Protein backbone atom coordinates (compact mmCIF):
# COMPACT_ATOMS: atom_id res chain seq x y z
CA UNK A 1 0.00 0.00 0.00
CA UNK A 2 1.57 3.28 -1.11
CA UNK A 3 0.13 5.10 1.90
CA UNK A 4 2.63 3.32 4.10
CA UNK A 5 5.52 3.70 1.69
CA UNK A 6 8.12 5.39 3.85
CA UNK A 7 10.16 6.35 0.83
CA UNK A 8 7.29 8.18 -0.81
CA UNK A 9 6.74 10.20 2.32
CA UNK A 10 10.36 11.01 2.82
CA UNK A 11 10.52 11.98 -0.86
CA UNK A 12 7.53 14.29 -0.41
CA UNK A 13 8.73 15.85 2.83
CA UNK A 14 12.15 16.23 1.33
CA UNK A 15 10.78 18.16 -1.62
CA UNK A 16 8.56 20.34 0.53
CA UNK A 17 11.18 20.78 3.21
CA UNK A 18 13.84 21.93 0.77
CA UNK A 19 11.62 24.80 -0.27
CA UNK A 20 10.28 25.84 3.11
CA UNK A 21 9.47 29.41 2.18
CA UNK A 22 7.59 28.45 -0.93
CA UNK A 23 5.84 25.69 0.99
CA UNK A 24 4.76 28.18 3.62
CA UNK A 25 3.47 30.68 1.06
CA UNK A 26 1.55 27.91 -0.63
CA UNK A 27 -0.11 26.94 2.60
CA UNK A 28 -1.09 30.48 3.55
CA UNK A 29 -4.30 30.40 1.53
CA UNK A 30 -5.54 27.23 3.13
CA UNK A 31 -4.46 28.38 6.59
CA UNK A 32 -6.60 31.51 6.25
CA UNK A 33 -9.46 29.59 4.69
CA UNK A 34 -9.46 27.13 7.55
CA UNK A 35 -9.34 29.97 10.08
CA UNK A 36 -12.32 31.64 8.42
CA UNK A 37 -14.27 28.40 8.20
CA UNK A 38 -13.67 27.42 11.81
CA UNK A 39 -14.26 30.93 13.14
CA UNK A 40 -17.54 31.19 11.26
CA UNK A 41 -18.71 27.77 12.34
CA UNK A 42 -17.55 28.31 15.89
CA UNK A 43 -19.29 31.69 16.13
CA UNK A 44 -22.49 30.24 14.71
CA UNK A 45 -22.27 27.49 17.30
CA UNK A 46 -21.59 30.09 19.96
CA UNK A 47 -24.72 32.00 18.98
CA UNK A 48 -26.73 28.83 18.88
CA UNK A 49 -25.48 27.92 22.36
CA UNK A 50 -26.19 31.45 23.49
CA UNK A 51 -29.80 31.25 22.41
CA UNK A 52 -30.09 27.85 24.02
CA UNK A 53 -28.93 29.41 27.24
CA UNK A 54 -31.43 32.24 26.97
CA UNK A 55 -34.19 29.72 26.62
CA UNK A 56 -32.84 27.30 29.15
CA UNK A 57 -35.52 26.59 31.74
CA UNK A 58 -38.39 27.26 29.42
CA UNK A 59 -39.99 24.18 27.98
CA UNK A 60 -39.76 24.63 24.23
CA UNK A 61 -42.76 22.46 23.56
CA UNK A 62 -45.21 24.62 25.43
CA UNK A 63 -48.03 27.09 24.96
CA UNK A 64 -50.03 29.51 27.04
CA UNK A 65 -53.78 29.93 26.80
CA UNK A 66 -55.88 32.72 28.31
CA UNK A 67 -59.29 34.22 27.85
CA UNK A 68 -60.08 37.40 25.95
CA UNK A 69 -63.28 38.93 24.64
CA UNK A 70 -65.40 37.49 21.86
CA UNK A 71 -65.41 39.27 18.53
CA UNK A 72 -68.41 37.49 17.02
CA UNK A 73 -71.97 37.23 18.33
CA UNK A 74 -72.97 33.61 18.79
CA UNK A 75 -75.94 31.65 20.17
CA UNK A 76 -77.67 34.75 21.42
CA UNK A 77 -74.55 36.19 23.07
CA UNK A 78 -73.38 39.58 22.00
CA UNK A 79 -69.88 40.29 20.87
CA UNK A 80 -67.40 41.63 23.39
CA UNK A 81 -68.28 39.06 26.01
CA UNK A 82 -65.38 38.34 28.36
CA UNK A 83 -64.32 34.70 28.46
CA UNK A 84 -63.51 33.47 31.95
CA UNK A 85 -62.23 29.93 32.40
CA UNK A 86 -63.11 27.67 35.26
CA UNK A 87 -60.66 25.45 37.10
CA UNK A 88 -62.57 22.38 35.88
CA UNK A 89 -61.41 23.22 32.32
CA UNK A 90 -57.95 22.07 33.25
CA UNK A 91 -59.19 18.56 34.01
CA UNK A 92 -61.47 18.49 30.96
CA UNK A 93 -58.60 19.40 28.65
CA UNK A 94 -56.21 16.98 30.28
CA UNK A 95 -58.72 14.20 29.99
CA UNK A 96 -59.68 14.87 26.39
CA UNK A 97 -56.26 15.60 24.99
CA UNK A 98 -53.77 12.88 25.99
CA UNK A 99 -50.93 14.74 24.28
CA UNK A 100 -50.91 17.28 27.09
CA UNK A 101 -48.05 16.41 29.38
CA UNK A 102 -48.34 19.17 31.94
CA UNK A 103 -51.14 21.62 32.49
CA UNK A 104 -50.55 24.30 35.07
CA UNK A 105 -53.56 26.50 35.75
CA UNK A 106 -52.86 29.99 36.99
CA UNK A 107 -54.83 32.87 38.31
CA UNK A 108 -53.67 36.42 38.58
CA UNK A 109 -54.73 39.12 40.98
CA UNK A 110 -56.22 42.00 39.08
CA UNK A 111 -56.22 41.92 35.33
CA UNK A 112 -53.23 40.81 33.30
CA UNK A 113 -50.06 42.83 33.69
CA UNK A 114 -51.69 44.86 36.42
CA UNK A 115 -49.76 45.19 39.63
CA UNK A 116 -51.03 44.81 43.13
CA UNK A 117 -49.73 46.51 46.23
CA UNK A 118 -47.80 44.20 48.50
CA UNK A 119 -46.99 45.53 51.95
CA UNK A 120 -44.39 44.78 54.56
CA UNK A 121 -43.58 46.95 57.55
CA UNK A 122 -44.54 50.15 55.87
CA UNK A 123 -42.97 49.36 52.51
CA UNK A 124 -44.86 48.70 49.38
CA UNK A 125 -44.10 47.02 46.11
CA UNK A 126 -46.32 46.96 43.10
CA UNK A 127 -46.02 43.35 42.06
CA UNK A 128 -47.83 40.80 39.98
CA UNK A 129 -49.50 38.23 42.20
CA UNK A 130 -50.08 34.76 40.83
CA UNK A 131 -51.90 31.73 42.13
CA UNK A 132 -49.99 28.75 40.76
CA UNK A 133 -49.54 25.01 40.81
CA UNK A 134 -46.04 23.62 41.40
CA UNK A 135 -46.15 22.14 37.86
CA UNK A 136 -45.52 25.60 36.43
CA UNK A 137 -41.92 25.14 37.46
CA UNK A 138 -41.58 22.47 34.77
CA UNK A 139 -42.60 24.89 32.06
CA UNK A 140 -40.89 28.10 33.15
CA UNK A 141 -38.12 27.21 35.52
CA UNK A 142 -37.44 29.54 38.42
CA UNK A 143 -33.91 29.91 39.61
CA UNK A 144 -34.14 30.03 43.38
CA UNK A 145 -31.59 32.01 45.36
CA UNK A 146 -33.01 31.02 48.66
CA UNK A 147 -35.63 28.66 50.03
CA UNK A 148 -37.90 26.57 47.86
CA UNK A 149 -40.64 26.79 45.28
CA UNK A 150 -44.31 25.84 45.80
CA UNK A 151 -45.01 22.15 46.36
CA UNK A 152 -47.92 19.76 46.50
CA UNK A 153 -48.41 20.04 50.27
CA UNK A 154 -48.83 23.79 49.89
CA UNK A 155 -51.65 23.15 47.43
CA UNK A 156 -53.25 20.36 49.48
CA UNK A 157 -53.20 22.30 52.71
CA UNK A 158 -53.71 25.74 51.16
CA UNK A 159 -50.74 27.05 53.07
CA UNK A 160 -50.38 30.77 53.35
CA UNK A 161 -46.94 30.95 51.87
CA UNK A 162 -45.38 32.68 48.90
CA UNK A 163 -42.32 32.74 46.68
CA UNK A 164 -41.16 36.19 45.69
CA UNK A 165 -38.95 37.57 42.95
CA UNK A 166 -35.64 39.22 43.66
CA UNK A 167 -37.02 42.56 42.56
CA UNK A 168 -39.87 42.26 45.03
CA UNK A 169 -37.38 41.29 47.73
CA UNK A 170 -35.37 44.44 47.09
CA UNK A 171 -38.45 46.60 47.41
CA UNK A 172 -39.72 45.02 50.61
CA UNK A 173 -36.56 44.07 52.48
CA UNK A 174 -33.26 45.67 53.46
CA UNK A 175 -30.19 44.52 51.68
CA UNK A 176 -28.96 41.29 53.23
CA UNK A 177 -32.04 40.90 55.38
CA UNK A 178 -33.28 37.35 55.75
CA UNK A 179 -36.67 37.17 54.09
CA UNK A 180 -37.43 33.50 54.59
CA UNK A 181 -40.05 33.12 57.30
CA UNK A 182 -41.05 36.79 57.17
CA UNK A 183 -44.60 37.82 56.38
CA UNK A 184 -45.81 40.04 53.60
CA UNK A 185 -49.36 41.38 53.19
CA UNK A 186 -51.46 41.27 50.06
CA UNK A 187 -54.99 42.68 50.12
CA UNK A 188 -54.99 42.31 53.87
CA UNK A 189 -53.90 38.68 53.91
CA UNK A 190 -50.52 37.65 55.30
CA UNK A 191 -48.24 35.23 53.49
CA UNK A 192 -44.97 33.75 54.73
CA UNK A 193 -42.05 33.95 52.31
CA UNK A 194 -40.53 30.51 51.64
CA UNK A 195 -38.40 31.25 48.63
CA UNK A 196 -36.77 33.94 46.54
CA UNK A 197 -35.99 33.49 42.86
CA UNK A 198 -33.69 35.53 40.72
CA UNK A 199 -33.68 36.51 37.10
CA UNK A 200 -31.46 34.16 35.12
CA UNK A 201 -30.89 35.97 31.84
CA UNK A 202 -33.55 33.84 30.35
CA UNK A 203 -36.83 34.62 28.86
CA UNK A 204 -38.90 35.57 31.84
CA UNK A 205 -42.57 35.55 31.19
CA UNK A 206 -43.56 36.38 34.74
CA UNK A 207 -41.08 39.14 35.40
CA UNK A 208 -38.90 39.44 38.47
CA UNK A 209 -41.28 41.53 40.50
CA UNK A 210 -43.85 38.88 41.25
CA UNK A 211 -45.32 36.91 44.12
CA UNK A 212 -46.29 33.27 43.70
CA UNK A 213 -48.97 31.82 45.97
CA UNK A 214 -50.38 28.27 45.94
CA UNK A 215 -53.44 28.18 43.70
CA UNK A 216 -55.73 26.85 46.40
CA UNK A 217 -54.54 29.47 48.90
CA UNK A 218 -55.19 32.13 46.29
CA UNK A 219 -58.76 30.89 45.81
CA UNK A 220 -59.53 31.07 49.49
CA UNK A 221 -57.67 34.27 50.31
CA UNK A 222 -59.03 36.35 47.47
CA UNK A 223 -62.29 34.58 47.08
CA UNK A 224 -61.96 33.76 43.39
CA UNK A 225 -64.03 30.62 43.56
CA UNK A 226 -63.52 28.31 40.61
CA UNK A 227 -62.12 30.95 38.30
CA UNK A 228 -58.95 30.30 36.36
CA UNK A 229 -56.95 33.01 34.59
CA UNK A 230 -54.75 31.12 32.18
CA UNK A 231 -53.01 27.88 31.54
CA UNK A 232 -49.43 27.01 30.87
CA UNK A 233 -49.36 23.77 28.90
CA UNK A 234 -46.48 21.53 27.93
CA UNK A 235 -47.20 18.96 25.25
CA UNK A 236 -45.51 15.62 24.76
CA UNK A 237 -42.12 15.77 23.04
CA UNK A 238 -43.21 14.28 19.73
CA UNK A 239 -46.38 16.29 19.41
CA UNK A 240 -46.67 19.50 17.44
CA UNK A 241 -47.83 22.39 19.58
CA UNK A 242 -50.18 23.93 16.96
CA UNK A 243 -52.08 20.64 16.72
CA UNK A 244 -52.75 20.60 20.46
CA UNK A 245 -53.44 24.32 20.41
CA UNK A 246 -56.21 23.77 17.86
CA UNK A 247 -57.77 20.94 19.87
CA UNK A 248 -57.74 23.02 23.05
CA UNK A 249 -59.42 25.93 21.31
CA UNK A 250 -62.11 23.71 19.82
CA UNK A 251 -62.97 22.25 23.20
CA UNK A 252 -63.02 25.65 24.87
CA UNK A 253 -65.06 27.21 22.08
CA UNK A 254 -67.72 24.56 22.41
CA UNK A 255 -67.77 24.85 26.17
CA UNK A 256 -68.05 28.62 26.26
CA UNK A 257 -70.35 29.02 23.24
CA UNK A 258 -67.84 30.88 21.14
CA UNK A 259 -68.34 31.26 17.40
CA UNK A 260 -66.14 28.68 15.65
CA UNK A 261 -64.56 31.41 13.52
CA UNK A 262 -63.93 33.76 16.41
CA UNK A 263 -60.22 34.32 16.38
CA UNK A 264 -60.03 36.74 19.24
CA UNK A 265 -61.93 35.11 22.07
CA UNK A 266 -59.15 32.78 23.13
CA UNK A 267 -55.70 34.12 23.50
CA UNK A 268 -52.75 31.81 23.09
CA UNK A 269 -49.04 31.94 22.65
CA UNK A 270 -47.02 29.16 21.11
CA UNK A 271 -43.51 29.04 22.58
CA UNK A 272 -42.37 26.42 20.13
CA UNK A 273 -42.81 28.90 17.30
CA UNK A 274 -40.16 31.17 18.76
CA UNK A 275 -37.89 28.22 19.34
CA UNK A 276 -38.36 27.03 15.81
CA UNK A 277 -37.70 30.48 14.43
CA UNK A 278 -34.53 30.82 16.40
CA UNK A 279 -33.26 27.36 15.71
CA UNK A 280 -33.94 27.78 12.01
CA UNK A 281 -32.14 31.11 12.19
CA UNK A 282 -29.09 29.54 13.79
CA UNK A 283 -29.26 26.63 11.38
CA UNK A 284 -29.29 28.99 8.43
CA UNK A 285 -26.39 30.80 10.02
CA UNK A 286 -24.48 27.54 10.42
CA UNK A 287 -25.28 26.48 6.88
CA UNK A 288 -24.22 29.84 5.55
CA UNK A 289 -20.97 29.71 7.52
CA UNK A 290 -20.26 26.28 6.13
CA UNK A 291 -21.06 27.43 2.62
CA UNK A 292 -18.82 30.49 2.83
CA UNK A 293 -16.11 28.52 4.59
CA UNK A 294 -16.09 25.72 2.05
CA UNK A 295 -15.78 28.11 -0.84
CA UNK A 296 -12.98 29.97 0.88
CA UNK A 297 -11.37 26.61 1.41
CA UNK A 298 -11.84 25.79 -2.25
CA UNK A 299 -10.10 29.05 -3.13
CA UNK A 300 -7.27 28.14 -0.77
CA UNK A 301 -6.89 24.69 -2.25
CA UNK A 302 -6.94 26.15 -5.75
CA UNK A 303 -4.13 28.44 -4.65
CA UNK A 304 -2.17 25.35 -3.62
CA UNK A 305 -2.92 23.76 -6.96
CA UNK A 306 -1.75 26.92 -8.67
CA UNK A 307 1.52 27.03 -6.84
CA UNK A 308 2.05 23.33 -7.47
CA UNK A 309 1.41 24.03 -11.14
CA UNK A 310 4.12 26.68 -11.08
CA UNK A 311 6.31 24.29 -9.14
CA UNK A 312 5.81 21.64 -11.77
CA UNK A 313 6.89 24.10 -14.44
CA UNK A 314 9.90 25.01 -12.37
CA UNK A 315 10.71 21.37 -11.81
CA UNK A 316 10.27 20.33 -15.42
CA UNK A 317 13.91 19.39 -15.63
CA UNK A 318 13.85 17.49 -12.36
CA UNK A 319 10.74 15.60 -13.38
CA UNK A 320 12.35 14.85 -16.75
CA UNK A 321 15.43 13.47 -15.00
CA UNK A 322 13.25 11.36 -12.73
CA UNK A 323 11.36 10.04 -15.74
CA UNK A 324 14.62 9.22 -17.49
CA UNK A 325 15.79 7.40 -14.40
CA UNK A 326 12.69 5.25 -14.46
CA UNK A 327 9.92 7.12 -12.67
CA UNK A 328 6.66 5.89 -14.17
CA UNK A 329 3.84 8.39 -14.81
CA UNK A 330 2.00 6.84 -11.87
CA UNK A 331 4.87 7.54 -9.51
CA UNK A 332 5.20 11.14 -10.69
CA UNK A 333 1.47 11.77 -10.42
CA UNK A 334 1.30 10.20 -7.00
CA UNK A 335 4.10 12.32 -5.68
CA UNK A 336 2.46 15.58 -6.79
CA UNK A 337 -0.92 14.55 -5.38
CA UNK A 338 0.60 13.48 -2.09
CA UNK A 339 2.39 16.83 -1.99
CA UNK A 340 -0.97 18.55 -2.47
CA UNK A 341 -2.56 16.47 0.28
CA UNK A 342 0.29 17.00 2.70
CA UNK A 343 0.33 20.75 2.07
CA UNK A 344 -3.42 21.05 2.48
CA UNK A 345 -3.68 18.84 5.52
CA UNK A 346 -0.77 20.54 7.21
CA UNK A 347 -2.08 24.00 6.41
CA UNK A 348 -5.52 22.92 7.54
CA UNK A 349 -4.19 21.75 10.88
CA UNK A 350 -2.25 24.96 11.41
CA UNK A 351 -5.34 27.00 10.55
CA UNK A 352 -7.38 24.80 12.83
CA UNK A 353 -5.00 25.31 15.74
CA UNK A 354 -4.94 29.09 15.23
CA UNK A 355 -8.70 29.41 14.92
CA UNK A 356 -9.37 27.21 17.93
CA UNK A 357 -7.02 29.49 19.86
CA UNK A 358 -8.94 32.55 18.68
CA UNK A 359 -12.24 30.92 19.60
CA UNK A 360 -10.90 30.11 23.05
CA UNK A 361 -9.92 33.77 23.44
CA UNK A 362 -13.35 34.94 22.28
CA UNK A 363 -14.87 32.50 24.70
CA UNK A 364 -12.81 33.81 27.60
CA UNK A 365 -13.75 37.38 26.70
CA UNK A 366 -17.44 37.13 25.86
CA UNK A 367 -18.32 33.47 26.24
CA UNK A 368 -20.36 33.93 29.41
CA UNK A 369 -23.31 35.08 27.34
CA UNK A 370 -24.11 37.91 29.77
CA UNK A 371 -24.29 40.72 27.25
CA UNK A 372 -25.41 38.97 24.13
CA UNK A 373 -26.16 35.38 23.19
CA UNK A 374 -22.69 33.97 22.61
CA UNK A 375 -21.75 30.93 24.64
CA UNK A 376 -18.94 28.44 24.21
CA UNK A 377 -18.04 29.19 20.58
CA UNK A 378 -16.37 25.99 19.38
CA UNK A 379 -16.84 23.58 16.55
CA UNK A 380 -17.98 20.05 17.08
CA UNK A 381 -15.87 17.05 16.18
CA UNK A 382 -18.16 15.98 13.31
CA UNK A 383 -18.04 19.51 11.91
CA UNK A 384 -14.26 19.44 12.06
CA UNK A 385 -14.18 15.94 10.57
CA UNK A 386 -16.40 16.90 7.67
CA UNK A 387 -14.46 20.09 6.93
CA UNK A 388 -11.18 18.27 7.08
CA UNK A 389 -12.35 15.39 4.92
CA UNK A 390 -13.82 17.79 2.40
CA UNK A 391 -10.61 19.78 2.35
CA UNK A 392 -8.45 16.73 1.75
CA UNK A 393 -10.71 15.35 -0.98
CA UNK A 394 -10.70 18.77 -2.62
CA UNK A 395 -6.92 18.78 -2.52
CA UNK A 396 -6.81 15.37 -4.19
CA UNK A 397 -9.12 16.55 -6.97
CA UNK A 398 -7.33 19.85 -7.42
CA UNK A 399 -3.93 18.18 -7.10
CA UNK A 400 -4.77 16.17 -10.20
CA UNK A 401 -4.29 19.27 -12.35
CA UNK A 402 -0.61 19.85 -11.56
CA UNK A 403 -0.08 16.08 -11.34
CA UNK A 404 -1.32 15.57 -14.88
CA UNK A 405 0.75 18.51 -15.99
CA UNK A 406 3.78 16.82 -14.46
CA UNK A 407 2.99 13.58 -16.22
CA UNK A 408 2.77 15.38 -19.54
CA UNK A 409 6.36 16.50 -19.16
CA UNK A 410 8.18 14.50 -21.79
CA UNK A 411 11.63 13.62 -20.58
CA UNK A 412 13.11 14.40 -23.97
CA UNK A 413 11.87 17.98 -23.84
CA UNK A 414 12.79 18.43 -20.23
CA UNK A 415 16.32 17.25 -20.87
CA UNK A 416 16.93 19.25 -24.00
CA UNK A 417 20.08 21.26 -23.49
CA UNK A 418 19.60 24.98 -23.63
Amino acid at each position, binding site marked *: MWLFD*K*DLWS*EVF*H*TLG*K*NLFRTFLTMLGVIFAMIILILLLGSANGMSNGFDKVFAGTASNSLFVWGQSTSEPYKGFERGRRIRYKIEDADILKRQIPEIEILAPRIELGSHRETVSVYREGRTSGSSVYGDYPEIDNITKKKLVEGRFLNKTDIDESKKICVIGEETYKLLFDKGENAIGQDIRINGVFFTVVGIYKPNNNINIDGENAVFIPFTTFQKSFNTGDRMGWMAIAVEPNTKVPVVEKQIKEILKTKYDIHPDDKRAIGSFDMSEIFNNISSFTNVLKGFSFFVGIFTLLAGVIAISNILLITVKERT*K*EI*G*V*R*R*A*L*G*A*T*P*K*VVRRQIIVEAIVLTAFAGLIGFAISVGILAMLNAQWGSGEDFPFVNPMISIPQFGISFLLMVSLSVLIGLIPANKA*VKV*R*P*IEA*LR*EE
Partner: protein
Amino acid sequence: MIEIKDLHKSYRMGSNSLHVLKGINFSAKAGELVAIMGSSGSGKSTLLNILGMLDGADSGEYVLDGVPIKDLTETKAAQYRNKFLGFIFQSFNLINYKSALENVALPLYYQKVGRKERQEKALNYLERVGLKEWATHLPSELSGGQKQRVAIARAMAAEPKVLLADEPTGALDSKTSYEVMDLIQKINDEGNTILVVTHEEDIAHMCKRIVHLKDGVIVEDKKVNQVRAEQYV
Protein backbone atom coordinates in the same frame (compact mmCIF):
# COMPACT_ATOMS: atom_id res chain seq x y z
CA MET B 1 23.38 -5.97 -27.26
CA ILE B 2 21.97 -3.21 -29.45
CA GLU B 3 20.45 -4.00 -32.83
CA ILE B 4 19.06 -1.25 -35.06
CA LYS B 5 17.67 -1.84 -38.54
CA ASP B 6 16.58 0.82 -41.03
CA LEU B 7 15.59 3.40 -38.47
CA HIS B 8 13.68 6.43 -39.71
CA LYS B 9 12.60 9.49 -37.83
CA SER B 10 11.16 12.78 -38.97
CA TYR B 11 9.81 15.76 -37.10
CA ARG B 12 6.89 17.86 -38.19
CA MET B 13 7.74 21.51 -38.27
CA GLY B 14 4.49 23.20 -39.10
CA SER B 15 3.48 22.18 -42.62
CA ASN B 16 6.77 20.61 -43.70
CA SER B 17 8.45 17.70 -42.06
CA LEU B 18 12.13 17.36 -41.30
CA HIS B 19 13.62 13.99 -42.04
CA VAL B 20 16.27 13.57 -39.36
CA LEU B 21 17.19 9.89 -39.43
CA LYS B 22 17.17 8.36 -42.87
CA GLY B 23 17.63 4.66 -42.35
CA ILE B 24 20.17 3.93 -39.68
CA ASN B 25 21.61 0.43 -39.39
CA PHE B 26 23.74 -0.08 -36.36
CA SER B 27 24.64 -2.73 -33.88
CA ALA B 28 26.79 -2.87 -30.82
CA LYS B 29 27.96 -5.91 -28.93
CA ALA B 30 28.22 -6.22 -25.21
CA GLY B 31 31.31 -4.56 -23.79
CA GLU B 32 31.75 -2.08 -26.62
CA LEU B 33 32.65 1.57 -26.14
CA VAL B 34 31.25 3.44 -29.12
CA ALA B 35 31.59 7.14 -29.91
CA ILE B 36 28.81 8.64 -32.00
CA MET B 37 30.07 11.72 -33.78
CA GLY B 38 28.56 14.25 -36.04
CA SER B 39 27.97 17.95 -36.40
CA SER B 40 24.89 19.51 -34.97
CA GLY B 41 21.88 18.58 -37.03
CA SER B 42 23.41 15.31 -38.07
CA GLY B 43 20.83 13.39 -36.05
CA LYS B 44 23.10 12.06 -33.34
CA SER B 45 21.00 13.42 -30.50
CA THR B 46 17.84 12.06 -32.08
CA LEU B 47 19.49 8.67 -32.39
CA LEU B 48 20.50 8.79 -28.75
CA ASN B 49 16.97 9.76 -27.72
CA ILE B 50 15.57 6.81 -29.59
CA LEU B 51 18.21 4.52 -28.13
CA GLY B 52 17.31 5.93 -24.72
CA MET B 53 13.59 5.33 -25.30
CA LEU B 54 12.98 8.99 -24.73
CA ASP B 55 11.59 9.18 -28.22
CA GLY B 56 10.07 6.69 -30.59
CA ALA B 57 11.15 5.92 -34.14
CA ASP B 58 8.78 6.27 -37.10
CA SER B 59 9.87 3.02 -38.64
CA GLY B 60 12.58 0.44 -38.26
CA GLU B 61 13.59 -2.04 -35.66
CA TYR B 62 15.28 -1.55 -32.34
CA VAL B 63 16.18 -4.58 -30.26
CA LEU B 64 17.90 -4.11 -26.94
CA ASP B 65 19.40 -7.20 -25.33
CA GLY B 66 16.93 -9.37 -27.20
CA VAL B 67 13.92 -7.24 -26.26
CA PRO B 68 12.15 -5.50 -29.14
CA ILE B 69 11.57 -1.87 -28.26
CA LYS B 70 8.34 -0.90 -29.95
CA ASP B 71 5.12 0.92 -29.19
CA LEU B 72 6.02 1.47 -25.59
CA THR B 73 3.57 3.06 -23.20
CA GLU B 74 5.02 5.78 -20.97
CA THR B 75 4.96 3.38 -18.06
CA LYS B 76 6.66 0.57 -19.96
CA ALA B 77 9.26 2.97 -21.35
CA ALA B 78 10.02 4.21 -17.84
CA GLN B 79 10.43 0.66 -16.59
CA TYR B 80 12.71 -0.29 -19.50
CA ARG B 81 14.78 2.84 -19.06
CA ASN B 82 15.18 2.01 -15.43
CA LYS B 83 16.12 -1.58 -16.09
CA PHE B 84 18.19 -1.34 -19.28
CA LEU B 85 19.69 2.12 -19.48
CA GLY B 86 21.87 4.50 -17.56
CA PHE B 87 21.96 8.13 -18.64
CA ILE B 88 24.87 10.53 -18.39
CA PHE B 89 24.04 14.08 -19.47
CA GLN B 90 26.14 17.02 -20.55
CA SER B 91 24.73 19.20 -17.79
CA PHE B 92 24.80 16.37 -15.23
CA ASN B 93 21.10 16.82 -14.33
CA LEU B 94 21.56 16.01 -10.70
CA ILE B 95 18.61 16.90 -8.50
CA ASN B 96 19.94 19.96 -6.76
CA TYR B 97 18.25 19.53 -3.41
CA LYS B 98 19.34 15.96 -2.97
CA SER B 99 22.73 14.92 -1.67
CA ALA B 100 25.14 13.02 -3.86
CA LEU B 101 24.15 9.80 -2.16
CA GLU B 102 20.44 10.43 -2.63
CA ASN B 103 20.98 11.26 -6.27
CA VAL B 104 22.80 8.01 -6.85
CA ALA B 105 20.11 6.09 -4.96
CA LEU B 106 17.25 7.53 -7.02
CA PRO B 107 17.16 4.92 -9.83
CA LEU B 108 17.21 2.23 -7.14
CA TYR B 109 14.22 3.90 -5.50
CA TYR B 110 12.31 3.58 -8.75
CA GLN B 111 13.40 -0.06 -8.87
CA LYS B 112 11.74 -0.43 -5.47
CA VAL B 113 14.95 -1.50 -3.82
CA GLY B 114 14.73 -1.34 -0.03
CA ARG B 115 16.02 1.75 1.72
CA LYS B 116 18.95 0.14 3.41
CA GLU B 117 20.15 -1.79 0.41
CA ARG B 118 19.73 1.33 -1.68
CA GLN B 119 21.95 3.37 0.59
CA GLU B 120 24.60 0.66 0.64
CA LYS B 121 24.62 0.24 -3.13
CA ALA B 122 24.66 3.96 -3.74
CA LEU B 123 27.58 4.42 -1.37
CA ASN B 124 29.39 1.57 -3.07
CA TYR B 125 29.04 3.26 -6.47
CA LEU B 126 30.09 6.60 -5.07
CA GLU B 127 33.19 4.88 -3.76
CA ARG B 128 33.88 3.48 -7.21
CA VAL B 129 33.87 6.96 -8.70
CA GLY B 130 36.03 8.13 -5.80
CA LEU B 131 33.48 10.35 -4.08
CA LYS B 132 32.62 8.38 -0.97
CA GLU B 133 33.57 11.27 1.32
CA TRP B 134 31.28 13.59 -0.63
CA ALA B 135 28.20 11.44 -0.15
CA THR B 136 26.32 13.93 2.00
CA HIS B 137 27.16 16.97 -0.09
CA LEU B 138 24.71 18.74 -2.30
CA PRO B 139 25.50 19.08 -6.01
CA SER B 140 26.07 22.80 -5.52
CA GLU B 141 29.02 21.95 -3.27
CA LEU B 142 30.68 19.81 -5.94
CA SER B 143 32.90 20.77 -8.85
CA GLY B 144 31.83 20.04 -12.42
CA GLY B 145 33.97 16.94 -12.64
CA GLN B 146 32.68 15.67 -9.33
CA LYS B 147 29.10 16.28 -10.44
CA GLN B 148 29.66 14.26 -13.58
CA ARG B 149 31.20 11.47 -11.55
CA VAL B 150 28.14 11.46 -9.30
CA ALA B 151 26.00 11.33 -12.44
CA ILE B 152 28.04 8.38 -13.70
CA ALA B 153 27.62 6.63 -10.37
CA ARG B 154 23.89 7.27 -10.62
CA ALA B 155 23.77 5.88 -14.15
CA MET B 156 25.55 2.75 -13.00
CA ALA B 157 23.64 2.28 -9.78
CA ALA B 158 20.73 0.52 -11.46
CA GLU B 159 23.19 -1.86 -13.17
CA PRO B 160 21.90 -1.14 -16.66
CA LYS B 161 22.74 -3.06 -19.83
CA VAL B 162 23.90 0.04 -21.63
CA LEU B 163 25.23 3.42 -20.54
CA LEU B 164 24.24 6.33 -22.76
CA ALA B 165 26.42 9.40 -22.41
CA ASP B 166 25.28 12.56 -24.16
CA GLU B 167 28.30 14.88 -24.49
CA PRO B 168 29.53 13.81 -21.04
CA THR B 169 32.53 16.13 -21.25
CA GLY B 170 30.76 18.98 -23.01
CA ALA B 171 30.62 21.18 -19.94
CA LEU B 172 34.05 20.32 -18.55
CA ASP B 173 37.57 21.60 -19.11
CA SER B 174 39.97 19.24 -20.84
CA LYS B 175 41.69 18.00 -17.71
CA THR B 176 38.43 17.07 -16.02
CA SER B 177 37.19 15.72 -19.33
CA TYR B 178 40.04 13.25 -19.36
CA GLU B 179 39.35 12.29 -15.77
CA VAL B 180 35.76 11.53 -16.68
CA MET B 181 36.82 9.62 -19.78
CA ASP B 182 39.28 7.68 -17.67
CA LEU B 183 36.40 6.68 -15.43
CA ILE B 184 34.25 5.74 -18.42
CA GLN B 185 37.09 3.63 -19.85
CA LYS B 186 37.51 1.84 -16.55
CA ILE B 187 33.81 1.11 -16.35
CA ASN B 188 34.01 -0.20 -19.90
CA ASP B 189 36.98 -2.36 -18.93
CA GLU B 190 34.68 -4.11 -16.50
CA GLY B 191 32.55 -5.19 -19.43
CA ASN B 192 29.87 -2.49 -19.55
CA THR B 193 28.50 -1.37 -22.91
CA ILE B 194 28.78 2.39 -23.32
CA LEU B 195 27.64 4.76 -26.08
CA VAL B 196 29.16 8.24 -26.02
CA VAL B 197 27.80 11.07 -28.13
CA THR B 198 30.48 13.67 -28.69
CA HIS B 199 31.79 16.10 -31.25
CA GLU B 200 35.28 16.22 -29.80
CA GLU B 201 37.84 14.20 -31.76
CA ASP B 202 40.10 13.47 -28.79
CA ILE B 203 37.20 12.21 -26.70
CA ALA B 204 36.00 10.05 -29.60
CA HIS B 205 39.43 8.49 -29.92
CA MET B 206 39.30 7.39 -26.33
CA CYS B 207 36.52 5.02 -27.37
CA LYS B 208 37.05 1.76 -29.20
CA ARG B 209 34.86 2.48 -32.15
CA ILE B 210 33.70 5.67 -33.88
CA VAL B 211 30.44 6.04 -35.76
CA HIS B 212 30.10 9.15 -37.92
CA LEU B 213 26.67 10.55 -38.64
CA LYS B 214 25.95 13.05 -41.34
CA ASP B 215 22.57 14.26 -42.52
CA GLY B 216 20.76 11.38 -40.90
CA VAL B 217 22.86 8.52 -42.22
CA ILE B 218 25.97 6.72 -40.96
CA VAL B 219 28.81 7.75 -43.20
CA GLU B 220 31.60 6.03 -41.36
CA ASP B 221 31.86 3.22 -38.82
CA LYS B 222 35.38 2.28 -37.81
CA LYS B 223 37.28 0.61 -35.05
CA VAL B 224 40.06 2.72 -33.55
CA ASN B 225 42.97 2.13 -31.28
CA GLN B 226 41.84 3.34 -27.96
CA VAL B 227 43.76 6.24 -26.46
CA ARG B 228 43.88 5.73 -22.72
CA ALA B 229 42.85 8.84 -20.86
CA GLU B 230 44.93 7.80 -17.89
CA GLN B 231 48.09 9.26 -19.36
CA TYR B 232 46.66 12.77 -19.41
CA VAL B 233 45.37 12.72 -15.90
